[in-house]
Every structure is written in structure tokens, then in C-alpha cells.
């Protein structure tokens, strides 16, 4: 594997709060890519739940957060198609690797490959990412 699972987030004591946008600018289904200190981060509103991922695909370093967010065919025990994770799967715009925005894990190798995720907080009507 040339990709590794989500590294540990920076220790709480060293993280800085970075403004992403007012809540009103990030409705469900919206996203915003922002600078957060030395990181570029994609912040997504998944049906009211905010998720933030490093904007670097672990595969070929593509700007993964610019890719489409949609559902996918769920990993299946049988030879059958089961659509699911609607609105939760980020697909890299370069090579199509899929990642769950819930936890950053890749669909093809969730144990070993995923996106680096950041914590998101909402305070005083603003969305912040901790990085």
C-alpha cells in the first residue's frame, strides 16, 4: 500500500481553531475548501453533520475534496448490487478512489487506507475546523 490510514489528529493542545464559514454558508450537501494553518481542508455538511478531510488523496496526492460526493455500491457478500451511503462517499476527482466522509476510510481497503480527518466545531454561528 502506498496509502496509510488516517494519521492521528494533532494533539488537542497544539490544534488551532480555524474559521471555515458561517453556518448559513454551509447548508446540508455543501462543502468548502479552506486553509487551516499548514493544511488545506475540505469541510462538508453531511445532512447536518460536519466533516473535514485533508485535501490530499493518499493515492496520488490529488485534491480529493474537489471530487463528487454521492452514494456507492456497498461492499457485498453476494454477487449483488446494494446502493447505500448516499451523500456520504467522496470520490477522488482524479482516479475515483472512494472514501467514506463519516470516518475517512476508503471503500476498497478501509483498514489500511483512508483520508486524514479533522475535528469540526460550531461556535457562535460559525463553523471551525481544528487543525
Amino acid at each position: 500500500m502506498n496509502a496509510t490510514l488516517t494519521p492521528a489528529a494533532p494533539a488537542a493542545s497544539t490544534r488551532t481553531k480555524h474559521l471555515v464559514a458561517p453556518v448559513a454558508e454551509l447548508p446540508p450537501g455543501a462543502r468548502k475548501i479552506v486553509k487551516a494553518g499548514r493544511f488545506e481542508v475540505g469541510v462538508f455538511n453531511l445532512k447536518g453533520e460536519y466533516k473535514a478531510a485533508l485535501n490530499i488523496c493518499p493515492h496520488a496526492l490529488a485534491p480529493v475534496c474537489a471530487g463528487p460526493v454521492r452514494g456507492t455500491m456497498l461492499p457485498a457478500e453476494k454477487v449483488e448490487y446494494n446502493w447505500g451511503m448516499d451523500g456520504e462517499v467522496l470520490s477522488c476527482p482524479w482516479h475515483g478512489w472512494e472514501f467514506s466522509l463519516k470516518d475517512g476510510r476508503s471503500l476498497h481497503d478501509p483498514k489500511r487506507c483512508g483520508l486524514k480527518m479533522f475535528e469540526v466545531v460550531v461556535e457562535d454561528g460559525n463553523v471551525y475546523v481544528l487543525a
Partner: protein
Amino acid sequence: MTAPVLEAQPKTEKASAIRVVDCDVHQLVGLAQCREYLPQPFKRMAESGCAPGHLGLHNPIGVVRSDLVESDGKNAASKPDGIGRTLLDPYGIDIALLTGGVYGFSTHPDPDYAAAVCSAYNSYMIEHWLPKDPRFRMAINVATQDAALAAEEIARVGSHPGVCAALISSATQHPLGQRMYHPLFAACEKYDLPLCLHPGSEGTCISNPPTAAGYPTRYLEWHTGISCTFQAHLVSLVCEGVFQKFPGLKIVLVEGGVSWLPPLMWRLDKNWKALRSTVPWITRAPSEIIQERVFMTTQPIEEPPEHRQLKQLFEMFDAEKMLLFSSDYPHWDGDTPDFAVRGFPESFKRRVLAENAVELFGL
């Protein structure tokens, strides 16, 4: 020639009894020998010589070794004792998987005729060959035009103690993973018979062109291109979910070459990471599935300029577990056991020469 085959001490009593298994021995039995077992109207068809044609490509060496023609004018490979004298005895081969045969009838337009010829062949072999030498086992030949008929034939003879595999032509009308072939896979799984793919009929009669680019001009090109058919079948088998649907099924790629496997797996794994959602039942890297469920016979083992390059290749996949020695006797491109494994790491010669086959075929 003598065969200094194996030096290492056997690990088990069973392994000590079987030191070399040859997984591709072509006894020269064809339509002529099968006629008496054919019902009408197929007997009449056989008597008229009705058979899939060949491409007409020229091999100046001849497909069957000329040095095996004996004083009676017959090729040793056409006689049970001839195979013993010219292959099994001199090379210390303990078990020969007799592959035949008539699998090329899978390219005949008539599915009933093809199935009948395979049945006749299997009956003939069970009656006239298997009893002749305790070293003989056979891969029953089945035709692929109608997988339900193939499954019936497996049910008919698949439990015979001398039968340890089913064998089909790699020249088919469709990529092999597709669902019209699934009844055949179900039967192989039920009767615990690994399914062997064997080349030779690529491009003939109703099969597809022998290469994806079309019909090559010469036998040399045709023969080199056989690996391409195997690659297409392997990708199809994996992606159609055959190994999930039939968890007991094992596939043996006979005479399809070896060296192409690692880069094909790399390519398939890479593409799968991006296109996984089109085959969601593939929940781990295709290369993992292949290395657990697919086996390859060695002949014609590639001959790179340096033996060490073959060793490097074997580091790129689970060669120790996947490879099965085969001679392809009596064909012009055959490998003897000592020749086949001369470039192999010492550490897994025993597995390739015997143990993998003993486990796979339940010998």
C-alpha cells in the same frame, strides 16, 4: 535422459510416496477412439470425420514429438504402456494427469455433438486407460457450448476414483466468468473437481479470434498470444464474482504461461481500487482472490535470459503455492521435470513438482 528431480527430504509420508506429479499429459486419444461410445446420430457424424477445423497455421516442427514414433509406426503417447516407458519411468513421474483429448470440440457449432463426444471420450478413457497404469488419473473433458450438459457429464463420471479434475478448452464463445457457464462451476464445486482450462483451439470454428487484435498470420504469433485468452478469462472469473458464488471452486490455468500473472494482478488491483463500485462483491484485492483460488501449470515455462530473473518473478506472486509441474508430453514445446524447475528456488521445488498437485487434486 535421466531426471535428477528432487533431493530434499520429504516432509510427510504421503509426500514421500509422490515426488512428481505431471499435470498435463496428452495421451493421443481422439474422436476415432470414441466412436464406439457415441449414440446416433453422433456416431454417424463422427464416422464422417465431423470435427471442429483448425486454423491452418503451420508448425514445421509438428505438434507431436516425432522421436516418440516407435517401431510399430505408432506414437508412444497413443499407448498406455508407451507413456509409461517414455515419460513416467524415465522421469520418475508418480502421477500423470491425462488431459487428452477432445476438449477442442467446444468450438464445434453443435452443442449436443460436442457434449456427446466428450462423454464418449470420458467413458473410453475410464474403461481403456485408467485401469492400465496405477499412475494414471484423468481430467474429464467437458464442452462449454451448453454448461448444463457439461454439469450433467460431471455428475455422470465426476465421482470415479480416477477422475480428479474437469477440463475445458480455453477457446470459448464468451469470457468464462459470465453466467451461462455457472452451471459448470456449480458441478465442479459439488464434485470437488478443480476446473482446468487448456489452450489449443483458440480461433477455431465458433470460438472468438485467437487474439483481441484478430487472426495472426503464423503459428508462432498464435502460440505466443494464447496467454492473452487466459488473461481475459481470469479477469472475467474474478470480476463476475465466480469465486464468491462458488467458494469451493478452484481454477487451473494449464499451458497458459506464467510470467504474465504478476503485472496482470497489479493492473487489476489498481483498476479495482478506482472501479470497485462496479463489482461491489469484490471486497478485497483481486490479487488475493487469485492467489488463493487459481493455479497455473508450469509448461511452457518462460525462459528468460537469466535464471535469476525467473526467481525474481516468483517473488512477485505466491508461486510456491500456485504452480503445478506439467510436461505437456508429447507436444513439441514440452518440459521435462528437471528442465522445468531448474531455475526454481530450491525451497519450493518439492511443492511445485508434487505437493501442490497432491493437495489440489486430492491424490
